[in-house]
């Protein structure tokens, strides 16, 4: 180093990314416990694809491989994407989505730190727009389906599309809690009756509400490690809960309460791992709060009134567009230049 400062704090990017991946582990473990090993297969597929596409793009762009392959950012994108696709989706879906996320959403924009949109959410959006049927076929939580797939059978289904003889996919599949509520409401059933079905647990979906707790634990760890600012998860979950409460109070027979919305779908995962992507979120304290809150409201609107299984991805992508403007409008006052302060 030729110029000051001559000291640097040893917390490289790699450690940051490793901690983010580590924070996902409790949720992933609960996920595999509840739905079987399908999710682990998806994670493995996404990870391999991400590293391969990352390496290919770096080579094409003439960038050094080692520092960028080992920074861990591609892996975090891959893991988030793998957690967003149905655990029993065919193998090529997560591979395609990861390739789009890394190749298109990340490297076409200039690589790490340059992307306008959250890469994982771009990959997810491509899948949900192109393959809506496959993307809504979720496996039933273990113990709730008419039939169950063992680990090997799950592998077989993901890679070859073959189920054990005499078993139809519908027997092991189930609509997600969010989908179930929307469909049943459309058929005119009262909400209280819908939520009494076995697929619903105490607050969210049976089994999946525990996974949500796993994301929460990981998220709090990230906040405690000062890797995510509180404004993003608090703004997001707060706005989602407030919007849900408002609708619920206005018409409790039609709109589920805030607890249901926090504990279902990708709300909790999104709040701590997707909304918090630093590259695509604003950087000012008020900007972060505003961004996250608007994403929370949009999530609610899309998941309740839209036709997609959940609203997190599109809410985040729409807010990504607004990030530069929000940053511009929420610049904090600089030292010595605050209005209304003695000085």
């Amino acid at each position, binding site marked *: *180093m030729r110029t000051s400062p001559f*000291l640097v*704090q040893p*917390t490289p*990017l790699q450690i*940051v990314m490793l901690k983010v991946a580590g924070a996902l582990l409790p949720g992933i473990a609960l996920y595999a416990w509840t739905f079987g090993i399908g999710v682990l297969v998806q994670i493995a597929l996404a990870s391999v694809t991400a590293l391969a596409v990352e390496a290919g793009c770096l080579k094409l762009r003439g960038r050094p491989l080692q520092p960028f392959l080992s920074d861990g950012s591609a892996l975090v994108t891959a893991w988030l994407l793998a957690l967003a696709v149905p655990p029993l989706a065919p193998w090529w879906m997560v591979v395609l989505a990861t390739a789009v996320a890394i190749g298109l959403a990340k490297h076409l924009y200039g690589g790490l730190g340059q992307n306008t949109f959250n890469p994982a959410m771009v990959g997810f959006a491509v899948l949900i727009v192109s393959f809506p049927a496959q993307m809504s076929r979720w496996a039933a939580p273990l113990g709730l389906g008419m039939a169950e797939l063992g680990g090997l059978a799950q592998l077989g289904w993901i890679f070859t599309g073959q189920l054990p003889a005499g078993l139809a996919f519908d027997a092991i599949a189930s609509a997600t809690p969010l989908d179930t509520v929307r469909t049943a409401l459309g058929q005119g059933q009262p909400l209280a009756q819908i939520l009494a079905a076995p697929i619903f647990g105490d607050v969210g979906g049976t089994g999946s509400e525990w996974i949500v707790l796993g994301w929460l634990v990981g998220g709090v760890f990230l906040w405690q490690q000062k890797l995510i600012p509180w404004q993003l998860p608090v703004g997001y979950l707060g706005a989602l809960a407030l919007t849900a409460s408002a609708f619920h109070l206005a018409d409790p027979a039609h709109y589920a309460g805030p607890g249901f919305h926090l504990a279902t779908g990708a709300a909790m995962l999104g709040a701590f791992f997707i909304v918090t992507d630093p*590259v695509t979120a604003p950087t000012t304290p008020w900007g972060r709060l505003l961004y996250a809150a608007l994403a929370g409201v949009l999530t609610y609107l899309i998941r309740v009134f839209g036709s997609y299984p959940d609203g997190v991805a599109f809410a985040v992508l729409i807010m990504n567009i607004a990030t530069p403007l929000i940053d511009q409008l929420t610049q904090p*006052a600089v030292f010595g230049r605050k209005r209304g302060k003695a000085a």
Partner: protein
Amino acid sequence: MSRLHAFHGGIHPPEHKAESNGARIVQVPLPPQLVVALNQHIGHGAKPVVAAGDRVAKGQMIGRAEGRVSAAVHAPTSGRVLAVEPRVVAHPSGLAELCVVIEPDGEERWIERQRFDWRNADGPAVLDHLRDLGVVGLGGAVFPSHLKLAGARTLDTLVINGAECEPYITCDDRLMRERADEIGAGIAIVRQLMNARQVKVGIEDNKPEAIEAMRLACGGQDIEVVVVPTLYPSGGAKQLTRLLTGREVPAGVRATDLGVQCFNVGTVQALYRALEHGEPLLSRIVTLTGAVARPGNVEALLGTPLSHLMAFAGVAADVTGHVYGGPMMGFVLPSLEAGLTKSGNCIIARNAELFPPAPPEMPCIRCGTCAEACPAELQPMDLYWFARARQFGRAQERHLFDCIECGACAYVCPSNIRLVDYFRYAKSEIWAAEKSRDAATLARRRHEARQARQERDKRERAERLAARTTPRPAPPPLPEQVTPQEAPAAPAAPTDDDKQARIAAAMARAAARRAGQAGKGEGGDGA
């Protein structure tokens, strides 16, 4: 116990103070030669008033202050002037600047010191006296002290900076432990000169002995010694002022105008020596540390070659270079042949173990850790983008020039981006652009003035020609007496006045700009 007003951000780098703060300050033996730079402060360099071959006495002025923002320079010991010539100075550029080279005679023969009755002298006389004794800020910014003392009819709070927040540096710590009484006497002087309502001495809590010594020395007086938490850069003048008074001094504003002013403990001690003993600033305490055999603090004459100091401390074999100042804001010395200057609070011998090479720079992921660490409450990641994109206007709008270059952002950056380098680059590009714009404006004005002159001459020649062709009643004046410049004296006069006025205005602007820049420099005292 007054309330602390915590500033935003700050970092906790490893302190490395224990290596050098244990032993008493020792005197360095006279070196064979002193290389005294004539520009050791912010502002104009002093003008040499001695020549090669002159004999000088200890304390004799060898450089006179030039203009308002300047300070005098003195012979640190008695001896003979060998040369007045450009020598390498302690500056990152490694460029040579005018120095007075003195060969000490070992007699330490003092010039006749005159006690100055500052209590009965009027304000300007005291300030001139301090300028002529070369007293400048010793915290590192070397802003001429008389300018900081000027212009205060009353002051709300006088802040005395003993925070010494930068790692490795312990010269203020030792000074407070060993010469607290002189600092106390200096504080009393500054308080009286500035008519300060209250005095607060800020010291970081990692210096308990210094805190004790200062409390003892300030016991009789109404001075509050405030213990502040160890948090870099609490020793920045702006940060310490905020910490102790809650007032924020924006960039480009004189602290005095807001009722506060900040002096480093070393500066206050030098003020005491100057006003009570008539002693000019001839030496300073400097921390010699890092990869050396005998780390510690020495009192060395200004102009002592840095190689002499490092030899005294015993440089280890694996040293790869030397840092002048602290590791957060100092710079790499291009050569150890330079002489010690008034700003030299610390010299650190670097080796690979203490200062490992910087890890490779990765892209910015906008994590905002830098913004959380920035004590100026800037958004360093945005300024970095603007600097990279050469959007200097936007960087300026986002207060690039409020950056104090403390290095906290670069220290915490997980991508190891050398943020401060980008900010220095952007600042120098903006300065260069301003300079060339000023030069262009000047050139355009000159061009316009030349055109006006030429047109006027042409017109006058035509008029003269017309006058000659008409019959004249009186004999014409001799041609030699009517040079083209003199003849049209009357019509030319207003143009000349115009030019004079423009020159005067330009000089006033330049002076204002210099003062503005000097005002900025005022901020950095301490560290």
